[in-house]
């Protein structure tokens, strides 16, 4: 009898000892970093994993609140208050514009921490470090433009208790952007292994945009115009890219064109760009990027960017006319003809992140800023010429000439809108050129809050302010 109890006791004791360990989890669908990096090819797939969050483009933030667009559909949640200049820090656009770039930065910091000790050859290692650095720099650039001073995490947090960081001055953030992008430019391969990934010239092109931005509002570090010019012309003269003959050919593609520098691609049949839903004005849609009358009226005669780019009074096969005009850049009219509704429409057109035409405009703007218009005309007129419906009719989108430096600057800013609207830069262009008053002029009466100094930055999401103990940007009121 006693032996039984002893057996019981022994049994319990031996079980107690081993339990603790048997409760350790060994998941099979997710994997620990240590396990993951045992495979040398993992380093590259952790770099490519960063791309999933691109393009860092929030329609309400980057485009809608400019003077290019008319009132968004009342059924689009939160669109109207933002359009009427009354955003709050709780709106989705604040969260999206803030959190996504930081997710990119976290993912880049993660792989950057492991790469230096990777079992890869040095050039491969340098290339991957350059690629991750580029994506991180691009994300910081995005943040600093939208929000001004922002936290500057350069390492993944040690644990969940040590991830609060104060805001860093924007000049210092730009320094980090330059550091990341210049390293990337040095070390990235000349040609990306796959379309959609970045290479050396992507870095050069983005640097041109960064320098131009730094030279403009609010930093006004005008010394960078020459760097902007140098980078833009380097891309133009690299021979790698060529403007498409017809503006319409730049879009409605599922692969890079000769003009593409870096684009977000979709797999046809599986992926759809997000701009179709924002632009389509056929029944069943809640469009938020609809051309304003003012913008439509601003195009020159014979401008392909208008004649092809903006469609008014579209007649469907059933003879019904669409109520509102729409931008065609990312919309497939055959889908409208079929009556495809948002759940059915699959529009795999790529979304350009940076393309050659912008380099001409950057070159034009910086050349003019440094030396005046004389040598800048050729850059801008290249773009205008391409925009002509009839290339042989010089009255269409006529060449610019005889402008003062000031007039040229205004002209090139306008050209940015005509050329690059809907490509995720309209708000940042307004900020660089400090022309928010355009909104006030055009629709001051309908604004809930008049345009003011607070328009220089977007509101930081409340969750960040309260959980990170950082001050909010000026409120819109």
């Amino acid at each position: 009898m006693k032996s039984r109890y002893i057996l019981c006791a022994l049994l319990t004791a031996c079980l107690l000892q081993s339990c603790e360990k048997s409760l350790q989890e060994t998941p099979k669908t997710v994997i620990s970093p240590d396990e993951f990096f045992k495979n040398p090819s993992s380093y590259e797939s952790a770099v490519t994993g960063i791309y999933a969050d691109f393009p860092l483009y929030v329609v309400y933030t980057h485009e809608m609140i400019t003077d290019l667009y008319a009132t968004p559909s009342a059924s689009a949640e939160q669109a109207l208050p933002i359009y009427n200049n009354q955003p709050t820090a709780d709106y989705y656009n604040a969260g999206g514009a803030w959190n996504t770039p930081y997710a990119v930065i976290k993912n880049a910091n993660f792989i950057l921490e492991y790469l230096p000790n990777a079992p890869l050859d040095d050039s491969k290692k340098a290339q991957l470090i350059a690629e991750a650095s580029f994506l991180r720099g691009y994300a910081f650039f995005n943040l600093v433009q939208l929000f001004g001073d922002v936290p500057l995490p350069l390492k993944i947090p040690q644990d969940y208790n040590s991830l609060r960081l104060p805001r860093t001055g924007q000049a210092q953030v730009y320094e980090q952007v330059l550091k990341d992008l210049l390293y990337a430019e040095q070390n990235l391969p000349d040609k990306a292994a796959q379309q959609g990934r970045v290479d050396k010239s992507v870095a050069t092109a983005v640097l041109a945009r960064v320098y131009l931005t730094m030279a403009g509002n609010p930093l006004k570090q005008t010394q960078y115009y020459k760097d902007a010019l140098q980078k833009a012309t380097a891309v133009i003269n690299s021979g790698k890219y060529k403007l498409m003959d017809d503006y319409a050919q730049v879009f409605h593609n599922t692969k890079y064109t000769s003009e593409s520098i870096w684009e977000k691609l979709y797999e046809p049949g599986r992926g759809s760009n997000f701009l179709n839903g924002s632009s389509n004005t056929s029944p069943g849609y809640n469009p938020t990027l609809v051309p304003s009358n003012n913008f439509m009226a601003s195009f020159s005669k014979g401008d392909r960017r208008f004649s092809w780019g903006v469609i008014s009074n579209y007649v469907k096969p059933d003879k019904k006319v669409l109520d509102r005009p729409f931008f065609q850049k990312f919309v497939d009219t055959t889908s409208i003809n079929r009556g495809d509704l948002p759940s059915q429409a699959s529009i795999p057109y790529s979304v350009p992140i940076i393309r050659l035409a912008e380099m001409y405009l950057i070159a034009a703007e910086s050349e003019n800023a440094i030396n005046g218009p004389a040598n800048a005309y050729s850059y801008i007129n290249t773009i205008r010429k391409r925009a002509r419906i009839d290339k042989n009719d010089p009255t269409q989108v006529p060449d610019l000439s005889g402008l003062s430096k000031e007039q040229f600057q205004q002209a090139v800013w306008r050209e940015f809108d005509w050329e690059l609207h809907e490509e995720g830069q309209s708000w940042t262009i307004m900020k660089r050129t400090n022309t928010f008053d355009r909104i006030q002029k055009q629709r001051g009466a309908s604004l809930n809050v008049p345009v003011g100094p607070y328009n220089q930055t977007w509101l930081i999401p409340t969750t960040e302010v309260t959980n990170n103990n950082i001050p909010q940007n000026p409120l819109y009121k």
Partner: protein
Amino acid sequence: MYRPAIRLLLYMKLTVMLCIAVVLQTFASVKAQKITVNAQHETLKKVMKSIQKQQGYHFFFRGAQIANIPITARIEEASLQQAMDMIVAGKNLQWTLVDKMIVIREAEKTIPVYTYVQHEITGVVQDNNGKPIAGVTVQIKGTNNRTQTDASGRFKLSGAAQAILQISSVGYMTQELSTNGKNTIQVVLQNSNMDIGEVVVIGYGAVKKSDLTGSVSSIGSSQITQVNTVSNVAQALQGQAAGVRVNQASGQPGEAMKIQIRGVNSLSASNDPLYVVDGMPLDGLSAQLNPEDIENISVLKDASSTAIYGSRGANGVIMITTKKGKSGKTQIGYSNYFGVQNLRKRIDVLNAQDFANLQNEVTQNNNISKNENKPLPWTDEQIRNLGKGTDWQDLVYRSAMVQNHDLNLSGGNDATKYYTSFGYLNQDGTIRNSGFQRLSFRGNIEHRLWDRVTFSTSMSLQNSKYNRAQYESADGGGGIPWSSMVLPPTMQVYDQNGNYTKFTGVSWGETNPVGLSENWNNTSNNLRIIGNASLAMDITDGLKLKSSIGIDQGTTKNDLYYPGTTSLGQRTDANGKPIFGVASKSYNSSVTIINENVLEYEKDFGQHHINAVAGFTYQKSKGDNLNSGSGIGFVSDLYENNAIGSAITKGLPSTSYGDNKLISYLGRINYGFADRYFLTLTGRYDGSSRFGLNQKFAFFPSAALAWNVHKEEFLKDQELLSQFKIRGSYGKSGNQGIGNYQTLANVSARDIVFDSKIGTGFFLSSMANPNLKWESTKQTDLGLELGFLDNRIQVVADYYNKRTEDLLLNVTLPGSSGFNSVLQNIGVVQNRGFEFQVSARPNIGEEFTWNTSLNLSANRTKVLDIGRDAYGQPITYKEIGAGGNWFPTIVGQSMMQLYGFTVEGTYKTDQEAKDNGEPDKRAGDYRFKNWDGEGLVSASDDRTVISHLEPKFTFGFNNRFTYRNIDFSFLIVGSYGNDIVNEFRKYNISLNGSWNPTYEAYNNRWTGTGEAQFDRPSEKSGSAIRDYANSLWVENGSYLRLRDVTIGYTFPKNLLQSWHLSNLRVYLSAQNYLTITKYSGYDPEVSWASASVNGWDRGNYPAFKSITAGLRVNF
């Protein structure tokens, strides 16, 4: 460095060895099945112990003094009947045998009865379902003349022609009947939860109700099967137990219910109770158990009773005991019902003529405000010709049939008992093409191997098919209740080409509900096998070992096909060409293996009674899933999802896997003194794989006290109070309801597109979180149980106070970290409440019985803490879960309340809108309250808590009457003081001409002057109240519902005998036929299935009412 599996094996081996050793020893001491007693002035207790040893019968004494009565007897090789009769002879005692328990009590005081002639009385005893009851004691009142019913419920007695029969059995109310000279008597015993002698199933054991220290509600089989058209267990509990709130959130047959025991504890982790079937804990149970198989359900509510389930007890435990066979003749029972179910309520929306008038009015108003001159869409003549138009609700909903059959066989002998059953339920849904079918099988076998060793197995298998209608969403996406409400009556079902029309009134809302209800296929086929084998051994006097191994294995196949005829099945291929049909298929399998080993020791030392339990359990679960991904584009809809390989756009298959383990040590001591004072100490030490490296194990203790005051001397001599018990408990239980692998640093895969092709990249999805631990709930419970007039009236009242700490809460992280949130142990939620149950069985007359029971539960949930922000300030507002910024959690409130604008009618003038801070708005638009009275009305400072979703109280009121052969019962359930957030009102009160509104909105619209309840018809109508939470969505959700009313007839015995039946009852019943509520939506019990917010109507399957008729027959 053992691998876990090897360790388990080793452990099992040792257990088996241990068992064999015990068995061998037991075998050696097997005695004959006859009883031998040789007692010389031994106490009765000691004598009974010796009988228990010999025959295995448990016993208990009614009245503490009985145990010490001296017995002198010499009995050899006697049967139990003989032995017991000899033991109690001349002692003024009477005994009864119920199940396996010998109950000994004082004999009733003798009433002199004149005995003229010995008269033979035969009869049959049945329960109110017409099933014979075996083992019922039938006694001629005032004599020792008694017998027990046999397996078919029959008895035979000799006595005076004018005798009074007392018929009693544990679990039933004792009845007295006058024979009135009749020779045959039919007795229907009423189920009772009131008998003090009743045994209540608790975790790892059972305890006499009178000895119970915790708060446990016990529900018998007749209540469980009271309401027809119920497919799952939780639903059967509605209105039947205090503290248990059940919402029939959806009318989809087979759908899980919302069930909460004593409020909601957890913000992010699960709030579902733990289900334990025949001792086996299960991870979730909805419609996978045939309610007909259930003998009894115990709901464990307080910490004293739930702590034995430690980390899984915090949300309450539902203990289900299935039916077992009884020794005797084979019993065959069959029952069925057939019925028809209909939409409980239609939403009153405009007909085509009124809708056309509305569209004209919208155009007129648009023209005025936009200074345009668009022509009216309808001429008067067109309107006249429109008629009523398309009645979408009529086209989508139907009268749905339901039928249920249950056949069971049970029986056995002293050594082997069995219960087997087969059940079939086929319940069509009121939405076309939806329904639920279930085939269920059960076999429970118990075999006494030797005197001291019993082996039992129970096996249940259910196969179900669940056709799900597309019902979710209050925004479109094809949700049938939504679209059948808002689609214009002027729209046709088919276009000129015979294709389904598409609705373009709203993004993503395009799908034609008729097309979807006719052609959509979303079917789940589930096979769930729950099996358990256990060995119980009496090791020595009072010491028992029970060891069991159980398996719970489920496989579900999901088929999904969107046909090309509906717009949800119309897509484009890689070249932008339209293709038709979207198909996918998935398989999920899950298996849990449980091993439990429990030692139980029970002994009396004089007045002291001790029952101790100690155990070790090990549980391992794993699940995996294979999903085909969506194949798009098929040459024919005939394929459905059976030829996904032939899709034009191929699906991307995916798989998943997860596992977890739970290791537990448990113990409990019940100590009783003189049947008056009781103490229970419980503890469970649980280890779960899901928690952080540093926090795998936790201890959940509890203590409880009970005092049977009525057994004290000072209450002895009164008759009024038959029971007076005070009890109290305090303890801790936990919650581990989170996913696997949440505490590890993980790298996860994600899709990326390069070269226009999908590829795979990886990213750091989470960091290590080694300190994550259990959510724990501390609960105090104070209970009072009163019984009056021989327990004809019983009252149970409980007050509880629960405090849930270390909530498993997703803490929002600064976005700048790159992470959104992490699960941490932060926050405190309090639930306080009061439960009250009164039951009575008034003594009305011999032929008329009435049982009534009312229960009432009031719970108050209050969030006390949700952490601190980076400034060190308490966070008072937090968006958690699916409710987002509409239903944030706010400190001081109950969980997740609607937070938004308050609508104060409409503006009379444009100026009034400007003055109130809404410059966008015009006369006739909704006026939002400007709380601070300054500046603009804005989301940042003019939103408040605008709902109260938690009821002030819920209740159930159950009544059962019998008169001769007729029985009648009704069950009323209800809820008072709760709101419902009716998201349908985003659309059905908008007067914009795109969606069909209700007559309520149309008849009370703004018509040009003054104020109105609803805004001005125009294209902008409703836009202000659609995307921003506001008080127009909030409605009174109180209701009172006649859940069930049944009238039944039991055929008289003499008639049945000629049909060779032992019992036959037929009945007619109605479910949900009367509901009193102000709620304007389909049903006040509604709640969005996938949200943690109970009372958010965002498009659920509308409730149904039904009429059913059925019969129960015993052969």
